[in-house]
């Protein structure tokens, strides 16, 4: 002990303080929220995203039927009847954009939910049990990560879409649901799973790294010494503490999945016309780009705006929660 004593004393004091902060979860999140409030870009993004969601999931129900064709009224200019005009089939563009947004945003959110569920569980188990289990589980993840994501999703989507149309038929026959509605609903189901089933890999690695470091912390030892079972320690004490990075990563995954949905639909492998999604609308719009550019540009703008908002929101959350970009 060469260094002077109060120096050590003071650093220890700070450590105690920061530990206290970390474990009193609420104050951590409150701090993050305060930091977030200062980030204007993130706040604007949050507002933009909420408005988009309200439009697509709330206001859309008061709009025209997005599938109703009217071939005598093609490419109509904006009017009080059709706020943004009509498309090549005389369908109301505004309503199609909002309904399309429902599909795109839902795919993004639900697929992320699927991915987060798998990724957190997998990563937590791998990190918590460690040793050989960890080595094998992570080697699997590494291997899957080297496989081109979209290729597998395309094939998986093809497999699942058959299953979805069978389901749709079965529901209409046995439960007597409205056929159009059922079709619309089941059409997007495969996308949820196709994307979610392969989108969890990076998250699993992030969570695992978190768990590995959390495992060594005192409060986990304390919980173990109180005689809590290993699984209980994992689910009650460790996983909640991985929430920060998970939230950040999930927020950044949603726009990625929305982009994948659009890509698949564009290739004719996702949502199928006459159902609407932003990918479908952009694809249809591209055909009339020279004569009616608004058919591409209007859905394109809302699409890109939503992606902007989600990406900036994710960046803002990362800064606010002080999550460092994953090192590997």
């Amino acid at each position, binding site marked *: 002990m060469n260094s002077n004593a109060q120096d050590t004393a003071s650093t220890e004091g700070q450590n105690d303080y920061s530990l206290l902060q970390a474990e009193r979860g609420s104050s951590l999140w409150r701090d993050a929220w305060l930091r977030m409030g200062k980030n204007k870009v993130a706040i604007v993004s949050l507002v933009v995203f909420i408005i988009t969601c309200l439009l697509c999931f709330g206001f859309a129900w008061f709009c025209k039927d997005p599938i109703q064709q009217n071939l005598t009224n093609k490419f109509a200019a904006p009017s009080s009847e059709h706020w943004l005009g009509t498309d090549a089939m005389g369908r109301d563009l505004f309503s199609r954009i909002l309904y399309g947004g429902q599909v795109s945003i839902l795919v993004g959110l639900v697929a992320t939910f699927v991915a987060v569920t798998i990724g957190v569980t997998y990563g937590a188990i791998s990190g918590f049990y460690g040793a050989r289990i960890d080595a094998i589980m992570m080697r699997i993840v590494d291997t899957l990560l080297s496989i081109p994501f979209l290729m597998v999703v395309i094939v998986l989507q093809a497999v699942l879409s058959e299953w979805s149309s069978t389901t749709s038929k079965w529901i209409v026959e046995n439960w007597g649901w409205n056929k159009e509605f059922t079709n619309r609903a089941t059409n997007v189901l495969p996308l949820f799973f196709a994307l979610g089933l392969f989108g969890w890999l990076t998250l699993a690695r992030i969570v695992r790294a978190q768990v590995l470091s959390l495992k060594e912390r005192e409060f986990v030892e304390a919980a173990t010494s109180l005689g809590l079972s290993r699984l209980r320690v994992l689910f009650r004490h460790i996983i909640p503490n991985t929430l920060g990075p998970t939230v950040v990563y999930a927020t950044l995954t949603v726009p990625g999945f929305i982009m994948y949905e659009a890509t698949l639909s564009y290739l004719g492998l996702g949502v199928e016309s006459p159902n609407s999604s932003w990918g479908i609308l952009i694809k249809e719009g591209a055909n009339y780009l020279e004569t009616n550019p608004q058919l591409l540009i209007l859905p394109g703008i809302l699409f*890109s705006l939503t992606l902007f908002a989600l990406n900036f929101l994710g960046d803002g959350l990362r800064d606010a929660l002080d999550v460092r970009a994953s090192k590997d």
Partner: protein
Amino acid sequence: MLRFIASRLLQGLFVLFALYTITFFLAKAMPGEPFTTEKNLSEESKAYQRALYGLDKPILHQYLIYPKNIITEGSLAVSTSKGRPVKDIISQSFKVSVVLGLSALGIAICIGVPIGVISAVRRNSWVDWGTMAVAMIGICVPAFTIGPLLQIFIAANLPGIKVAGWGNPQDILLPAITLGLSTAAYLARLTRGGMLEVLSQDFIRTAHAKGIPASKVITRHALRGGILPSVAFIGPAFAALISGSFIVETIFQVPGMGQHFVNAVISRDEFLLLGVALFFGFLIVIMNLAADILTGILDPRVRITDNSPK
């Protein structure tokens, strides 16, 4: 170094095998049959076709015979939808795909990395804000929006640049830009992050303390470490470019391999699907290996401990 490359190649082989397994069983699970797309075939001729392609054998047999044929005969079987050997189809189109992919990657690197470096050095200035906002546009506006817009605004106004098609050298330009932009944006963000991380380290302070001019501190001391995240991203970036090429080939009517993959899924052509998937997988394995080697050259610490990150 040789041992390092050998172990990575072995790992790549493992990846290819996993890719094969997943694609094979997914292809088998795909609904519909390969020959239903043609006009009403009788049941007998369908059965005949199935036998011809070996599709009547037990699944396990089919699963094992395909890789065996690749190894022993170098054969990738015959496309059920085109009636031609998959190898021929690939050999006709892979050059196009590789040229397009590499030029897109080149464009992405040439745009993305310098932008990332500049915005890191000018952190929190309007240059930083501006370039990062543009990079965000590159990430958020999909290729299938940028592509048509480029067709309208550039191809229509510049003589010598065609809206679509493939044949002259300048035809590469628009598809490659469309394909490379989002990768450029990712690279810019990664490079910026990497540079910021390095610039905050102690050894940069040491370099300044030695009296080295600021510009040289960046090029000699910071750049190497700063571009490491981008180098590690080359593999995934190339995979993303392949995904993107499916779309770009459609927009600009480029006769590459991407269209074959999409068509193979639509027409349930499992041999073409497997062949193209494995070839793409092979390209990605090669790019990953290149990235690993480059990382080893840039970062001496990796050379000794040639393990994957913890």
